[in-house]
C-alpha cells in the first residue's frame, strides 16, 4: 500500500465521521423508498376501494330514498283517491243512487282531504249533479255538463283517472282525480276532485337526504310539481332541459357521475318513477356533501401517509446510522491497523455480521502481529543461520535457542592471513572493501551449506554444523564447505594480489561435544558454542598456512572417502596438553563435489 493511498483512506475516514457519507444516504433512500412505496400503494388501494364503496353507497342510498319518496308521494295521491272512493260507498248511494243526501259526503270529503279545493259529482251522462268549492259559491245554475271532460271519459269500470298537472292563475299546480261511483255492478257517476298539489310540498319537504339532499317531483313532461322550494313550483318551472330529467323521462339510467341541477350545482341524482301518475321523483344531493366522507377518508389516508412517511424518514435515518456507525468504526480500525497499529482492536458489539467481521479483523490482526513478530525473529536469526534454518527454527519453536544443551557439532574456523598487518597500514575503505568481498564469498557458501554462524570478528569467522538443526553428515558438510571456500577465496586472493595485496586464507575444522546456548538479552542475543572443540578448530586455523585446511582425526574418520589428505602430522597446540594429530585436506576426491551439490 502506497503512501498516497494511506492518506486517502485516512481522509475518507474523516469524511465518514463528519458527513455520514454515501452509505447512510443510500441506505436511507432505499429504506425510505421501500417504506413509502408500501405506504403509497396501500394508501392508493385504500383510496380506490373507498371511492368505489363511497360512490356505490351514495347510489344505493339515493335510489332507496328516491323509491321511498316516490312511494310516499304515490301514497299521498292514492290516499286522496282512496278517500274519494270511500266517499262513494255510502248508504245513500246503495239505497237511492245520487240523491240530495249525497252532498254530505262531499262536505265530509273536503274536511278530510285538505288538498281538494273543489269536488263535483257527475251522473252517468256527464252532468254535474253536485259541486262544492272551498272558494266559490255554487248555485244550481253553476252545475255544468262535462260529458266531454277527459276526467269523465277516462273513468271506466274500476279505473281511476289521474289528470295532467295544470296551473291555476299561472302559478298554483293542480291536478284532477276522478273515481267512479258504483251502485251494485254499474257505474252511476263520477266523482271529480280538483287537487292542489302544493300539499305535496309538505311530503317532499319532509324528505331529507343527508344535509343538503332534497327531493322533487316532475310531471311526465318535465313540469315541476313539487320541490322543497315551493317558489320554484309556483314559478311554473319546466326542468326538461336538465340532463337527468330528460334521461328519467326517457326511462334511461342516470350515470353515477355528478349532474348539474337547476341552480348550477353539482349533484348526485337518483330517480324513481310513479307510473300511475306518470310522474318522476328525483332525489338530489350536493356532490360536495356526498363526497365528504370520501374526502375525509382521503385526508385521513393522506395524513396517515404523511405520518408514515415521516416515520419512514426517521426509521431510515436510524437504520442508516445503525448500519453505518459500526462500519465507520470498522473502517477507522482497519485504517489504523493499516497504519501499523497492530495492537489496535476493533470493538463492535452489534451481535450481527458486522460484529463477526470485526472479530475476524481482530483475529487477523492478532495473526498479523504474530507473523510480524516471527518475521522480526527470523531476520535476527538470519544473522547466525541460513534463512532456511532460521525459518525452520522459528516454525519449530525456539526451545533449541532458549535452552542450553550439549551437542556433538563440527566447527569450522577460518580467517585471512596477514589481514592484521594489512588493515593497520591500508586505508579503512580498502580494508572494508576486502572484507565485503571476502564475506560475500563466505556468506554464499555458509548459506548454501546451511551452516550455523557462531560469530565473526574482523576477518575471522566461526561456524558449525548439526545444531540447532541436526544434520546427518556434519563433518562431510564442513569439509566440503571448506574445500569450496578454499577454491573461491583463492580466486579472491589472486585478484587481491593483482591489486598488490598479500593476503592468505586458512581453515581449521574439528568435531566433538560442545555446550550450545543462548547468550544475551531477548532482543540482542548470541547463539554460542562453548567447549574445546571450538578452541581446537581455532587453533587449527591458526596453524593452517594460506590455502590450507586442517582437520582433526575425528573429522577425517567421517570423511575418509570424500577427501584426499595430503599430510599427517602431530602438532602440539596451545591449551591442549597432548599433541593433536592433524590432517591437511588436499582436495575433494573424484565426484565429491557432486555429492556436495546433492546435499543441498
Amino acid at each position, binding site marked *: 500500500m502506497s503512501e498516497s493511498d494511506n492518506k486517502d483512506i485516512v481522509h475518507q475516514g474523516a469524511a465518514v465521521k463528519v458527513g455520514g457519507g454515501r452509505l447512510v444516504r443510500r441506505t436511507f433512500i432505499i429504506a425510505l423508498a421501500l417504506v413509502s412505496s408500501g405506504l403509497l400503494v396501500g394508501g392508493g388501494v385504500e383510496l380506490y376501494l373507498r371511492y368505489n364503496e363511497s360512490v356505490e353507497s351514495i347510489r344505493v342510498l339515493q335510489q332507496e330514498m328516491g323509491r321511498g319518496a316516490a312511494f310516499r308521494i304515490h301514497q299521498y295521491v292514492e290516499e286522496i283517491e282512496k278517500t274519494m272512493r270511500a266517499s262513494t260507498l255510502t248508504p245513500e248511494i246503495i239505497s237511492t243512487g245520487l240523491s240530495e243526501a249525497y252532498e254530505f259526503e262531499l*262536505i265530509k270529503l273536503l274536511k278530510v282531504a285538505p288538498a281538494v279545493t273543489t269536488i263535483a259529482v257527475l251522473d252517468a251522462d256527464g252532468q254535474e249533479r253536485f259541486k262544492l268549492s*272551498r*272558494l266559490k*259559491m255554487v248555485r244550481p245554475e253553476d252545475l255544468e255538463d262535462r260529458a266531454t271532460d277527459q276526467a269523465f271519459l277516462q273513468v271506466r269500470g274500476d279505473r281511476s283517472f289521474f289528470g295532467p298537472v295544470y296551473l291555476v292563475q299561472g302559478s*298554483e299546480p293542480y291536478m284532477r282525480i276522478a273515481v267512479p261511483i258504483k251502485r251494485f255492478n254499474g257505474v252511476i257517476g263520477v266523482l271529480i276532485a280538483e287537487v*292542489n298539489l302544493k300539499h305535496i310540498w309538505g311530503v317532499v319537504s319532509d324528505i331529507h337526504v343527508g344535509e343538503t339532499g332534497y327531493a322533487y317531483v316532475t310531471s311526465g313532461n318535465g313540469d315541476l310539481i313539487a320541490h322543497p322550494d315551493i317558489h320554484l313550483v*309556483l*314559478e311554473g318551472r319546466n326542468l326538461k332541459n336538465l340532463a337527468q330529467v330528460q334521461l328519467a323521462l326517457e326511462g334511461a339510467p342516470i350515470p353515477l357521475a355528478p349532474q348539474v341541477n337547476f341552480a348550477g350545482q353539482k349533484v348526485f341524482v337518483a330517480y324513481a318513477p310513479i307510473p300511475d301518475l306518470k310522474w318522476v321523483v328525483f332525489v338530489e344531493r350536493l356532490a360536495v356533501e356526498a363526497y365528504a366522507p370520501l374526502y375525509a377518508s382521503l385526508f385521513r389516508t393522506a395524513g396517515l401517509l404523511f405520518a408514515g412517511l415521516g416515520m419512514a424518514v426517521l426509521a431510515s435515518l436510524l437504520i442508516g446510522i445503525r448500519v453505518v456507525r459500526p462500519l465507520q468504526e470498522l473502517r477507522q480500525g482497519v485504517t489504523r491497523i493499516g497504519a501499523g497499529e497492530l495492537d489496535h482492536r476493533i470493538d463492535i458489539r452489534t451481535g450481527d455480521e458486522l460484529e463477526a467481521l470485526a472479530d475476524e479483523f481482530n483475529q487477523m490482526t492478532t495473526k498479523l502481529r504474530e507473523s510480524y513478530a516471527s518475521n522480526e525473529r527470523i531476520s535476527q536469526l538470519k544473522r547466525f543461520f541460513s534463512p532456511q534454518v532460521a525459518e525452520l527454527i522459528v516454525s519449530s519453536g525456539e526451545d533449541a535457542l532458549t535452552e542450553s544443551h550439549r551437542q556433538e557439532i563440527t566447527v569450522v574456523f577460518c580467517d585471512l592471513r596477514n589481514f592484521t598487518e594489512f588493515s593497520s597500514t591500508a586505508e579503512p575503505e580498502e580494508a572494508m572493501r576486502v572484507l565485503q568481498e571476502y564475506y560475500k564469498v563466505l556468506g554464499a557458501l555458509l548459506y548454501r551449506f546451511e551452516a550455523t554462524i557462531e560469530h565473526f570478528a574482523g576477518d575471522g569467522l566461526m561456524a558449525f554444523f548439526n545444531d540447532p538443526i541436526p544434520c546427518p553428515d556434519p563433518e562431510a558438510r564442513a569439509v566440503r564447505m571448506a574445500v569450496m571456500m578454499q577454491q573461491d577465496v583463492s580466486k579472491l586472493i589472486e585478484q587481491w594480489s593483482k591489486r598488490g595485496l598479500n593476503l592468505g586464507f586458512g581453515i581449521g575444522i574439528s568435531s566433538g561435544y560442545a555446550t550450545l546456548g543462548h547468550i544475551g538479552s531477548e532482543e540482542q542475543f548470541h547463539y554460542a558454542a562453548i567447549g574445546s572443540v571450538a578452541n581446537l578448530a581455532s587453533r587449527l586455523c591458526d596453524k593452517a598456512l594460506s590455502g590450507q585446511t586442517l582437520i582433526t582425526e575425528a573429522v577425517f574418520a567421517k570423511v575418509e572417502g570424500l577427501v584426499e589428505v595430503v599430510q599427517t602430522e602431530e602438532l602440539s597446540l596451545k591449551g591442549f596438553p597432548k599433541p593433536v594429530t592433524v590432517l591437511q585436506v588436499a582436495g575433494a576426491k573424484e565426484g565429491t563435489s557432486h555429492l556436495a551439490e546433492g546435499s543441498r
Partner: protein
Amino acid sequence: MFRYRNALRQLAGKLFLNKSELDTALTYTIATITSGIGAIARWQKPKQRKPTKFQLIYPGLACALVTVIPNFAVAQSSPTDVPVIGYLAWWPCKTPSSMSSDISRGLTDLGHKPGETIMIECRSANQSPEGLTTAAAELVELRVDMIVSTSEPAARAAYGATKTIPIVSIFSGDPISAGMARSLAQPGGNATGVSYYATELTGKRLDLLRKAVPKLSAVDVLSNPDVSYFPFEEDTKRAAGLLGIAVRVHHVRTPTDIDNAFATMKAENAQAVFVLPDLMLAGEGSRIAALAIEQQLPSMTWGSWYANQGCLLAYSTRYDELQYRLGYYIDRILKGAKPGDLPIEQPTQYSLSINLKTAKILGLKLPQTLLLQADNFIE
C-alpha cells in the same frame, strides 16, 4: 385572539377609549409584540449577518397586521351586519321592536333570532290610513332592509314610499291590479308575500250565510269607503245578484259610523249583516257582534276573531298561517333572493268558524251541511 379583543375592548370602554382608538392601540400592541419576537430571534444569533426567512417574516407580519386589522375590526362591528326589518303596523306597537308573533314564530323556525340576528323597527299607523303613509315614510327614512306588513293597505303605503326596499306582506287578493306585482308567479317588483283571498271568498261567504239563513232576501253590508280601491263592494253586489239577494251598503269610517249603521239597519228591518274586509272594521269585532246580537242579526265576517268576539259566522283563510308563512319570505330575501322573483302564494287552508252561543241567542237552527263544514265552534 378576537375573543380576547372583545374582552379588552370592554375593559377599554371603562377607560373611556373609543372603539377606533382601541383598535389602533390593539393593533400596534400586536405589531410591537410580533416585531419584538423577530428582534429576539435576531438577537439570539448575533453572528449571522444575513437576516433569515423568519426574521424577515416577523416585521412583515407586523406590517400586514397593522394594515389589515383595523379594516377587519371595522367590518366586523359594522351595524350593517345585523339586518333591520321595519314592521309597519296598523295597531300601536307594543314595544318599539315588536312584531306579529306569528311572523316571529316563522322566523324562529327558520333559525333566526328576532332581536338578535334580526333587529325589528316597529312603526304604527295608529289606526289611521294617513298614519300608514307617515309610518311607511319613517321606515324608509330609517333605511331598513325590508318592510313587513300583514295587510294590503299597509303594503300599498309602503309601496308608495319605496320602490327599492323589499316589501313582504299579506295581500287582500289581487296585488296585480294594485300594480304591485306583474304576475303571481313572478311579481317582478319589490313587493311579494301571500294572498289572503279577501275578495275571492265573498261569494262563498254569502253562500254560507244563505245556508245559515235560508230565507235570506237582503243583506246589510258594512264597508269602509277608505278602502274603496278594493273591489269588495262590487264583488259582493255581483255575488248577491247571482244569489238573488238584495244588498244595502253602509259606509263606515269610524266606530261611531258602525253604531249609526246598525241604527239604520234596525229601521230598515235588516235580515243579516255582512262585514267587508277593512282594518278599522277588523278592530271593531266586539262592537259589531254586540250590536248584531242586540238587533237579532246573523253576521258573516272575514276573520275567525269575529266569531270569537260573538259574530255568528266567519269564513276566511288561516290568517295566522299566512303570517307564519311571511317568515319564509323574509328569510329568503335576507339570504339574497329578490322579492320580484318570489311568487305570491295563494292560500290553501280555509276555516269556517261558527259561534253556537250566538246562534242560540238568535234562535237559529243551523243546517247540518253548514255545521259539517265548520272548523271552529265557539260555545
